[in-house]
């Protein structure tokens, strides 16, 4: 395990020196800020119209009715969703939509970089292949978690300052829950990227193949009979207030992530380097 930590540390320092870590943060935070600015602009513009705020407040029941129509008669789900600030919901929905693609771009070389340049040969004389995979995965998890948390903080900070009527105190607990979900959700897609990276040698090809996998998994996730074999199928489990749904959703993302990582690890252990 020591070897894995050393490799992770070296990889993270390399990411800092190559500005990869900085770019990751800029991309995540930049996109979060962009969403915050656009959302704030639109919502402020709409609510600035005379009577709109009152109309929105008065239409809570109508919104609940609409949610009931869409989601069925689960009143606790309807109440739960209706209680979440729109901005927070929108940001979590966008995160679920675009995070897998961001991960596939930023971590495309998670396992194939050292193998392509054969730098892995210097490392593998002193550490096991398992340590190499663990180390690389740990460093890329940090490169996922830190920017993801920062992006939520920046988003919340901006909307709390600029969005009229945004109750930051009420939003924070739900945002923290979604932030946690984001990390587990991202873990799964980092696993997928690592698997593709272990199978394909070029970083650009890894991105393309991962995109193709994401589209395929998304299509499969939309098919009722077999959707459960795709991570996409579990996306909306994370929107429920019920423990059973949440556990199913988080368990699925953790499970798929571990499955992808295990497959990537096996591939690295068995291949020539």
């Amino acid at each position: 395990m020591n070897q894995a930590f050393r490799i992770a540390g070296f990889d993270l320092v390399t990411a800092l020196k190559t500005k990869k870590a900085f770019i990751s943060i800029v991309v995540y935070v930049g996109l979060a800020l962009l969403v915050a600015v656009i959302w704030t602009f639109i919502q402020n513009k709409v609510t600035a119209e005379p009577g709109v705020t009152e109309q929105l407040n008065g239409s809570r029941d109508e919104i609940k009715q609409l949610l009931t129509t869409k989601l069925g008669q689960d009143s606790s789900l309807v109440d739960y969703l209706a209680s979440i600030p729109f901005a927070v919901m929108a940001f979590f929905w966008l995160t679920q939509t675009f995070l897998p693609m961001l991960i596939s771009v930023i971590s495309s070389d998670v396992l194939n970089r050292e193998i392509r340049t054969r730098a892995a040969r210097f490392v593998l004389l002193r550490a096991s292949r398992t340590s190499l995979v663990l180390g690389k995965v740990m460093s890329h998890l940090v490169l996922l978690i830190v920017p993801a948390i920062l992006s939520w903080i920046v988003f919340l900070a901006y909307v709390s300052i600029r969005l009229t009527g945004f109750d930051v105190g009420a939003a924070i607990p739900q945002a923290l829950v979604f932030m946690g979900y984001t990390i587990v959700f991202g873990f799964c897609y980092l696993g997928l990227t690592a698997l593709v990276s272990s199978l394909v040698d070029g970083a650009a090809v890894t991105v393309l193949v991962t995109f193709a996998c994401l589209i395929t998994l998304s299509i499969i996730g939309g098919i009722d009979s077999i959707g459960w074999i795709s991570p996409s199928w579990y996306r909306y489990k994370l929107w429920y207030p019920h423990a059973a749904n949440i556990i199913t959703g988080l368990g699925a993302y953790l499970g798929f992530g571990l499955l992808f990582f295990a497959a990537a690890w096996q591939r690295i252990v068995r291949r020539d380097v």
Partner: protein
Amino acid sequence: MKESLAVVTTSLTRRFGSLVAVDNLNLEVPTGSIFGLLGPNGAGKTTTFSMICGFVRPTEGSVTVLGFPVKEFPFSSGRLSALPQDAKFYPDRTVFDSMIFLGTLGGLTASEAARQSEELLAKVDLTNAGSMKGGHLSHGMMKRFGIAQAFLGRPDLVLLDEPTAGLDPRNAYTIRQMIRALAGTATVVVSSHNLAEVQDLCTHAAIINHGRLVSAGPMDELTSRNQEVVLTIGNLNEAILQRIQALAGVTGATALHDGSGVKVLFETNVDREADQAVSAIVAGAIAAGASVSGVKRGKDLEQRYLEVT
């Protein structure tokens, strides 16, 4: 597994599609030896190295390294190091950072890794390149970095794939000195095209061709050092030749084609060590009236190499 062997390959075979890079190779590298691995381009030397290091998996056969099947070798022990061919280290990290990282990965403390790194980089003439990034190193500098990292720690087995290829004579000399300094404390396997260098440096050697072992053994045996001596004789004639042929222990003596001397084959046994045998032959030739102006024991490794490849 014999404990006196640092590396054993048994029926080692590696195919890449239809190409058989290494074909049923049985190799034994004695512990403590400086072992030369020779062969023409494409003979399978680098693939053999890669299988010994665990980078490439054998299609058939097995490799035992320091007593462990290579799949089970404890790589974190720092007992094995190598100069892999064509491997490039992180282009964005400095030479010194990379050395310390590899040193600590091999079990050294950070301060010990730093101390050894400074020393080794100085030896390979890279002191001023310590702060250079890997991506800015020339081919020769990358090679010297590769050699320096191979000597980090206290490895029991060091594998060097063409360590002096592409280096200037001074650096090549330094590398040979570094390898010699390891003699007795570690086993070193060196692949090289420089036959004179291998003959000078190595205690044992193996020659492979088309992935197969064609000759192997102690250098003295490969070069017939203890079975053959060439005397340069200015006044060689039939009478002198006959008297040399008649010397005790001599199994054959033939005049060189250009008449400049005589090749003498002799046998050694418990009573007559090779050094004594050569002294006796030289003394006998002088006593026979020969004007001996040169003595050369054995044949060049080059000659042996050309015979078998």
